[in-house]
């Protein structure tokens, strides 16, 4: 089966998404695995977004520029991408499963009658065939799926591969023109940004969360230093909020926010169910607590039975050392 591997280069408000470089790494692996001159191409849909092409580590970039694609619009992008797929017949299209691209992902297959694979966590080329590992039922089971037929639309979850580095030289860009109807039924109007306020803990990729083990308000500075080094923010469990050491907006748990960061570092949090409910969805949980039997260790991925007041500065130092 011929055809190239495409990665939908997702961008929003002028920036490439974090997921795109991950998918390029994955796409590169698949293209190499299929061999026989299979190329990795990035597809850039947008308006005046060609400048982003230089940051895409692909063999080539196919760019469609149209005013209707200026902001995410599932109707316009589906029409554009469907036309492109019919025209160029790729082997597979990797679509990042994010809020920007997800609509398009769902719409394409019905239009083209192609196969779709959702919740893909891993993708391999086996003997010229594609095989996906998909996360089902909220992560309770995993399915290995054989993908026959082309093109296949594959929705890829965050974290499948490390991000690709920016290419040394900008990839060649092919401009393709697509006709889109003037009267689209879905019309973007504006963005509504949240009120600026205190840190929104639900939007952080990294949370250093402090519990009673932090002991005093002054010690919260230790957590803040680490959070700064990791590019995140400090959140807390209830006892800390109750003391008035941090504002209510920082509370994680049943009475506070439910967070799903990439890293949740629970520092001196024992792990009451009310708290666990608010953070169990984090991708990586590292817990530090003096009590080796603290319930937090049953939800954490990595645990350390020790003193947070010693551990936090040590980790801050170690993280800073790695950055140098």
């Amino acid at each position, binding site marked *: 089966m011929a055809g190239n591997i495409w990665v939908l280069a997702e961008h929003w408000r002028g920036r490439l998404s974090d997921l795109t470089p991950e998918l390029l790494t994955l796409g590169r692996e698949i293209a190499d695995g299929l061999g026989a001159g299979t190329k990795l191409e990035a597809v850039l849909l947008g308006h005046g977004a060609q400048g982003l092409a230089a940051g895409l580590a692909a063999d080539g970039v196919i760019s469609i520029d149209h005013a209707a694609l200026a902001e995410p619009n599932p109707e316009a992008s589906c029409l554009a991408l469907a036309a492109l797929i019919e025209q160029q017949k790729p082997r597979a299209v990797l679509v990042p499963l994010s809020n920007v691209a997800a609509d398009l992902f*769902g719409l394409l*297959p019905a239009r083209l009658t192609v196969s779709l694979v959702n919740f893909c966590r891993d993708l391999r080329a086996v003997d010229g065939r594609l095989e996906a590992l998909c996360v089902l039922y909220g992560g309770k089971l995993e399915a290995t799926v054989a993908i026959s037929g082309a093109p296949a639309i594959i929705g890829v979850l965050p974290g499948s591969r490390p991000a690709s580095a920016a290419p040394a030289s900008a990839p060649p860009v092919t401009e393709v023109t697509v006709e889109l109807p003037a009267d689209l039924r879905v019309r973007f109007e504006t963005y509504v940004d949240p009120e600026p306020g205190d840190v929104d803990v639900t939007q952080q990729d990294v949370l250093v969360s402090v519990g009673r083990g932090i002991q005093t308000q002054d010690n919260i500075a230790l957590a803040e230093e680490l959070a700064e080094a990791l590019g995140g923010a400090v959140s807390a469990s209830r006892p800390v909020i109750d003391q008035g050491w941090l504002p209510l907006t920082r509370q994680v748990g049943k009475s506070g926010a439910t967070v799903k960061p990439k*890293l949740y570092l629970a520092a001196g949090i024992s792990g009451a169910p009310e708290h666990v409910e608010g953070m169990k969805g984090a991708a990586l949980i590292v817990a530090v607590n003096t009590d080796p039997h603290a319930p937090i*260790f049953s939800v*954490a991925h*990595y*645990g350390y039975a020790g003193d947070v007041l010693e551990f936090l500065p040590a980790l801050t*130092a*170690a993280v800073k050392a790695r950055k140098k």
Partner: protein
Amino acid sequence: MNILVLMKMVPDIVEELEIAPDGKSLDVEAVRPIVSERDDHALEQALLLKDKSGGTVTVLAIESRDVDEVLFTALAKGADRAIKVAAGEAIFTAAEAAALLARVLPAVPNLMPVQLVVTGCQAIDDLDGVVAPALAERLKLPYLGIVTGVEAEADGSRAIVFKEYAGGTRGRYSVCLPAVLGVQAAPKPPRYVPVAKVRAAMKSRTLECVEAPAQEERSLLEIVSMTKPQAAGRAEMLEGSPEEVASKVAEILSSRGLA
């Protein structure tokens, strides 16, 4: 505004899920069905629209285990009609369900056209497709997903739809009606309906039943095997001095691109 809400059952993941003896499917006997969470939000969004600007809410689901209770609950919450699509014993994948619904909906008496079809923007078992956009495409209706709010425009020809992006930002869209919307979350959590009201609905209301034409489409995907992910039951405990552990943690974070 007349609104159709599509609801479906998914396995309750509070319970342990087991793999069937064939090694490549879910053991459906051991599963406890629950209404897909986002479908419940879609119903709430529909009821909020009805509360505000009138119209009707019809809920529809493909027949499956325990779906009756979900439909009666929807009636108790304020839905006007509940319809069950009888399609035999089969269990449908998302792509099959979308195809089936696209065929059945026009045939349901006194239903179409509706101004709005709402359902969850995704379900935890949507492996080979996503119902809402796939149905929209088949019904030739516009679609917007990851919706967190809908307001009817005065003339009834369009709706203001809010779509969620990162960082708390929402996109405001104007969508031509009729349309299909995939709901991520209603502006308010789904309402609670007391047991007594559900009981009353079971006594006084009926579920309409429509027969589905024979299935024509099959999923294009083949599941080769199903496995349980490696148990993340308990933390891997790191040993050593604070400095040693800190350096191990830093390494773990670095390997995940976090430090």
